């Protein structure tokens, strides 16, 4: 049990989660968010195929240029095309944003399910391990590890992935605890099914839904964490574009051309918001504790 959970009744997490219930469910906002995600993912995936100038080509004669025919969204302080950098940045940010929580989902999900299903010492070990990881402020830990391991996109993905494990473990364990009590699990056991079979065929399909909803929220968080690291210059290594890095670079041009910082900020905001809306809506519909699934 986390230090703060020992004194605080289990309802604390439930209350914080409840506090966010009441997000519009499958309303127009949901579909709008889904549309934006679709558009960004498509653009990022098709980045190389789109008729865009290279994101790293510098045009020293057209630095901080306003939007024009050649550069639809203008150029940054080194004369690089903004639109192209936004689209290529999307590709890199989204790649990290999807792969990192995937690590968390696979490892954290597995740990959480095993801990919640088998209980006992395994559970204590997993929970204690997760608590120790949670004892570090995540950004500080990420910075430290990047400093020691070296600044590459791969390392970035690994460390953010590892940092997301505790959250997935928690969600998976909570979902497992509430589902393992149900009768169809007992029925399967009574029919002589092996534990592995129960885990894979009965438990997993039910736990995967809340995990997937949480995964989308994880994508949103990862975009933010990667953005913060890149903003500090310690995330995606330049000159590769990333939204966070672009915001950081745009900082010194706030007076002359604020668009350089504000455009990637807008894109990041809309993308993070969209994943939050979709993830939250799905979570409200799949949380087994709220009797949905």
């Amino acid at each position, binding site marked *: 049990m986390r230090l703060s959970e020992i*004194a605080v009744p289990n309802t604390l997490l439930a209350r914080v989660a409840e506090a966010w219930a009441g997000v519009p469910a499958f309303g127009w906002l949901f579909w709008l968010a889904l549309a934006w995600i679709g558009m960004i993912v498509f653009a990022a995936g098709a980045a190389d195929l789109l008729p865009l100038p290279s994101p790293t080509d510098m045009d020293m004669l057209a630095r901080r240029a306003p939007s024009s025919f050649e550069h639809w969204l203008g150029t940054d302080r080194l004369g690089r095309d903004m639109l192209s950098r936004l689209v290529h940045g999307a590709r890199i940010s989204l790649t990290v944003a999807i792969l990192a929580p995937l690590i968390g989902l696979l490892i954290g999900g597995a740990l959480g399910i095993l801990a919640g299903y088998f209980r006992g010492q395994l559970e204590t070990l997993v929970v204690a391990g997760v608590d120790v990881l949670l004892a570090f402020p995540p950004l500080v830990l990420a910075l430290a590890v990047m400093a020691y391991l070296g600044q590459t996109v791969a390392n970035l993905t690994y460390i953010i992935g590892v940092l997301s494990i505790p959250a997935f473990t928690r969600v998976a364990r909570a979902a497992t605890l509430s589902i393992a009590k149900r009768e169809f699990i007992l029925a399967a056991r009574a029919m002589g099914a092996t534990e592995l079979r129960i885990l894979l065929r009965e438990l997993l399909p039910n736990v995967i839904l809340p995990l997937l909803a949480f995964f989308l929220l994880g994508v949103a968080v990862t975009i933010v964490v990667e953005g913060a690291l890149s903003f500090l210059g310690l995330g995606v290594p330049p000159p590769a574009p990333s939204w966070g890095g672009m*915001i950081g670079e745009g900082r010194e041009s706030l007076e002359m051309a604020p668009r350089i910082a504000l455009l990637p900020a807008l894109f990041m*905001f809309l993308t993070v918001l969209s994943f939050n809306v979709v993830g939250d809506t799905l979570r409200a519909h799949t949380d087994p504790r709220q009797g949905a699934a």
Partner: protein
Amino acid sequence: MLGFIAYRLGYLVPVLLAVTLLTFLIASLLPGDLAHAMLGDQATPEAVEALRRDMGLDQPLWWRYLNWLSGIVQGDFGRSFRTGEPVLRAILARLPVSLELMLLAEVTALAISIPLAIHCAANSGGAFDRVVTGLAFAKLSIPNFMAAILLIYLFAVELRWLPATGYVPLDEDWLGNLRCMLLPALTLALAEWPVLMRVLRSDMITVLQEDYITMARAKGLKSRRILFVHALKPSSLTLITVAGINVGRLIGGAVIVEYVFALPGIGRLLLAAIYTRDFMILQGVVLFVATGFVIVNFLVDLLYAVLDPRIRHAPK
């Protein structure tokens, strides 16, 4: 009460030990060698070897950990590679700035959240409630560094009311200090208020439906008293706990904010250590910050018990 504290302390010690272990192990992630990283690529193999022996890097891992740990508990966090300054001294010199920032941020966040939450809860479902809730949700998608840039753009570049960067020490000029700290504190506060507001609002809505609130109305008490005394106190438990847990997020956020606004705090020390590859400082700051985080959570637990008399008197 003392038994209660002792019981909680029993959990604190192992967690702190685990934190030290993990911090130490992270340092060993460095590919290659610490001594090599310090001296750079130009160093001769003999110089590297000498430094290795000097720093005890040829000893087994467990020995190095215990050696390091014994130094820690005596206050010896090592010395900076660059300046030779004792790490602990460097940290403590910058601690007040970070503390002031975090304190101002938390106070501002509460000052924003509490009135909003009370008003939303008292008129839940109304237009004000829905607008504020929507804003809170939207704010969650604006990370600290983005908020910092937006605030700088709005207040420093466009309106020119406040400075974009810089720091004036508190004892030198408290007004100037406040001017420099306002935007950074506001940035962090804006990151905290959505969760604080929503948690308090949710709890208050539940509490306002309790019988003792109807009883308070039946007693003819003023609305203000009912909201702020009868309803706020039982609703504030989750709020206080979340505020305490948020200290960790504040620490992470402080790194960004100190960097953007050029404040000489621990966050900037951490970043400087990374940029200059000063691993002694890096290790010391990480350990210091993680330990502080664990201890703050521990204190939050105690505070929670003080506020709710039922926890104190509950049988163990």
